[in-house]
């Protein structure tokens, strides 16, 4: 009896503490930006639409930049769809040697700090130590060489493709894995070729996965900052504009742009969320295709199924190699090339060693940034884990859980620079004035996106291991609610907690966009890469990128070991 009374109070306290922490650390920063626009509408109006000197110049810039960002993101997602869906299918259905390796390679851009990866891609395509070495010319492309038709710089495009590819591929892969293969076999026995089967059976069934994958990829591309800032050249994307305006103290313009991005992300994700959550049946079957045409399509598919089965497997593989492996290899080989001196001029000042140990003392900066990054990642991941474990239980067990889960999607789709701006405005001098720019504000920012990452990981483990059933069994055997959680549930979801912890730690190590805005005078490693590129200290940037990539590869190996064990 006494237990019961204490029990009720305890669970009440735990739940309310968790919810309060969740509201303050995660929800408030994600929504503050929008309310800021309403609270300070006068300032926004003055700065964006009715500046006495420039008029509505800022507004016109916002429109232009948004249009460019949209074009970039949409074309990257379109590319992802064309090549990512077949790759997802291959990963979900086929067994072949090296499959794990391929999966890891696809996931790599999720783990690699984006500024390091952006720099690697830049070096690969535009510098004399990159791909051009193979072709003999001094440089393959200029930074601003545009792709015809869509008029988007090539480098920017492939960086966005590489960084959004994993979101689409992994989401669709998971969806296809959940669809029983019997449907496909049934379709084949009824006389459909493998391509027809794909179009008529697998595609309609995996539409929810394709939609959510595309939205994730789109949101990611819209908000990408770290790599974009390095490869963008003369182009400006929305998230970079926010960083620039924030650094020029045009806070209202930045906030306006930021909240526009948040709203756009929401407008895109809400219908998809509703669509996906409903048990939908095919909606396009009413789309009538004339019999002749559909016969021609089926014949064509039958022909292609025979001829192109290998092409379908090989092309996505080539894309993965070009987009991901080559940059990583190039950046590492460039470090060795530049190790003692610039290989072309022979000057020691252009070598890695000189820059690290010479008068500019980049080594000190790197060590300092490493310390900052590790402190930030450890503290923010620790706090986020403390919030996430009870939060996951609440999400799974309470009726309002799914509302919390949807709210957790916000930090995942908000462009990171908007998020950083939101945190700056909320906690910083112009808001509550509790924290100054610097390491503590970086930690506060990283907590916001760490919680959803860890919670998703824990929930996956929770739902995959039948925790509820085992816990009920423990209760029938006489355990009370707390010892059941301690002895049964926590050990069962331990893997999920660890994976979430590592994922969030890695994410925090590599984060650039939000950090750039809230860092003040403290610097993390990815930001250091950006600074080095801006200071044209290329050898130092090469070294730091390699350092970051190696660090994240180690993390990837740890994740692999954890998820397999």
């Amino acid at each position: 009896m006494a237990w019961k009374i204490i029990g009720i109070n305890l669970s009440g306290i735990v739940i309310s503490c968790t919810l309060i922490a969740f509201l303050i650390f995660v929800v408030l920063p994600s929504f503050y930006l929008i309310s800021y626009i309403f609270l300070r509408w006068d300032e926004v109006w003055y700065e964006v639409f009715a500046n006495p000197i420039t008029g509505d110049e800022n507004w016109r810039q916002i429109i232009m930049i948004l249009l460019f960002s949209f074009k970039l993101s949409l074309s990257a997602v379109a590319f992802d769809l064309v090549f990512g869906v077949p790759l997802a299918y291959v990963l979900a259905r086929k067994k072949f040697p090296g499959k794990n390796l391929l999966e890891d390679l696809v996931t790599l851009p999720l783990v690699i700090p984006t500024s390091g990866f952006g720099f690697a891609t830049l070096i690969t395509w535009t510098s004399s130590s990159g791909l051009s070495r193979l072709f003999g010319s001094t440089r393959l492309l200029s930074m601003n060489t545009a792709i015809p038709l869509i008029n988007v710089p090539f480098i920017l495009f492939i960086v966005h493709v590489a960084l959004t590819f994993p979101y689409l591929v992994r989401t669709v892969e998971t969806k296809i894995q959940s669809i029983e293969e019997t449907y496909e076999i049934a379709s084949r026995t009824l006389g459909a070729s493998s391509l027809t089967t794909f179009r008529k059976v697998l595609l309609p069934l995996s539409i929810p996965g394709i939609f959510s994958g595309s939205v994730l990829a789109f949101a990611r591309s819209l908000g990408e900052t770290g790599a974009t800032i390095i490869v963008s050249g003369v182009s400006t994307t929305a998230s970079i504009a926010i960083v620039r305006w924030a650094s020029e103290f045009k806070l209202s313009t930045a906030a306006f742009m930021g909240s526009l991005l948040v709203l756009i992300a929401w407008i895109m994700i809400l219908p998809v969320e509703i669509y996906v959550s409903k048990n939908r049946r095919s909606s396009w079957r009413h789309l009538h295709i004339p019999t002749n045409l559909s016969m021609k399509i089926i014949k064509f598919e039958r022909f292609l199924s025979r001829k192109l089965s290998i092409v379908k497997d090989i092309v996505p593989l080539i894309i993965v190699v070009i987009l991901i492996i080559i940059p990583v290899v190039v950046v590492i080989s460039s470090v060795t090339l530049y190790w003692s001196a610039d290989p072309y001029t022979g000057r020691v000042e252009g070598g890695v060693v000189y820059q690290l140990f010479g008068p500019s003392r980049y080594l000190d900066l790197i060590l300092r940034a490493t310390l900052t990054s590790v402190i930030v990642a450890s503290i923010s991941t620790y706090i986020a884990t403390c919030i996430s474990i009870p939060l996951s239980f609440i999400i799974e067990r309470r009726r309002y859980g799914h509302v919390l889960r949807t709210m957790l999607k916000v930090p995942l789709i908000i462009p990171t620079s908007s998020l950083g701006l939101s945190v700056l405005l909320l906690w910083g001098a112009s808001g509550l004035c509790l924290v100054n720019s610097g390491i503590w504000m970086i930690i506060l920012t990283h907590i916001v996106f760490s919680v959803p990452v860890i919670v998703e990981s824990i929930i996956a483990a929770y739902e995959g291991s039948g925790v509820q059933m085992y816990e009920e069994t423990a209760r029938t055997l006489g355990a009370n609610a707390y010892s059941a959680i301690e002895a049964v549930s926590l050990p069962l979801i331990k893997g999920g907690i660890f994976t979430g912890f590592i994922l969030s730690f890695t994410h925090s190590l590599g984060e650039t966009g939000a950090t750039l805005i809230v860092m003040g005078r403290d610097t993390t490693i990815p930001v250091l890469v950006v600074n080095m590129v801006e200071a044209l200290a290329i050898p130092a940037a090469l070294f730091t990128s390699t350092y970051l990539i190696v660090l994240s590869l180690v993390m990837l190996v740890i994740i692999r070991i954890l998820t397999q064990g």
Partner: protein
Amino acid sequence: MPEVRLVNVTKRYGRILANDHVNLTIRDGEYISVIGPSGCGKSTLIKNIAGIIEPDEGEIYIDGKIVNNIPIEDRGIGYVFQDIALFPHMNVWENITYGPDVKGFSPEETKTIAREIIEMIKVSARIDAYPDELSGGTQQKIAVARALMSRSSLMLLDEPLGALDLKVRSVLRYELRRIAKALGITVLHVTHDQEEAMSISDRIVVMRKGRIVESGKPLQLYMKPKNLFTANFVGEANFLVGKIEKVSEKGLLIDIGNGLKVFSTEAKGNIGDRVVVAFRPEFIILKEKIDENAFFGEITRIVYSGSLVRITVETTSGDEILIKNPLKFGEPPPETGEKLTFSIPPENVLVYPYPEAGLHKELSLE
């Protein structure tokens, strides 16, 4: 017309031989069942024929043409799955017209066949209903209709009734046979339910450990199984170990120990051979007095299973023998501890040479 012939079909999964040099001919228009314990390779066999998996060795002929390496969609088969596999995003009509659509039948032709098939299957469901709105039995009927729609004359049924309730199963199995016979198609029906196979097949193939143990008409497999494993797997049987004591024109006299002897009308064997004697519990006759092939024992257990009483008797030799007797109205059933005399008709006593691997291993369902 489809005749299916398998020559030395072999399929390995790692070290496991799922199909071990299987040779089988399915005649045109035949309704054939493949039975065997789980893991015996019957599913692998049907998947080999369908092309869902490719055999490592051997050839498969459909209609005299070799079909190895021909993709599933070009083998011209109908396939019904245990887990039904109606496309969840299509309604009944879209499901059953899927085959004709992808094969390029004209819309008029499709409609004609569909009407014919729907009438034959006697589906009561609305054609615009979705699979998840229908009962399991109806779903499977529609899956059968869908497989029949492409007008293929070879149907492969992979445990088609396995996921359904007992009652629905016993009705649907006769439906399957009726439809197959009405359309004159060849059917290969895989099941683990020997009763299902017995009641609907022209011929039954018994498989074990990747090999075909025996094949024959249902009654033949039941009355005169050529093989100890079949005797145990098809129906039930009592097994006793003994030695042939006398060989005569009328049959064999077998000593089963403790002075007890069994007479069988089977003629094969030599004096002194170690043998296994098998007889069905439902052929045992309860008697008043001891005469030929009669035994005496004490009832150790009684189980009522529906219309039957299952009586376990321990004989004077210490062997346990199962007797199945119909439950009769007005006649008090025997009780545990009662003494009982019973006899086994000599023509129902089957004699097999003692298996090298031992009796237990030979009968095992592993």
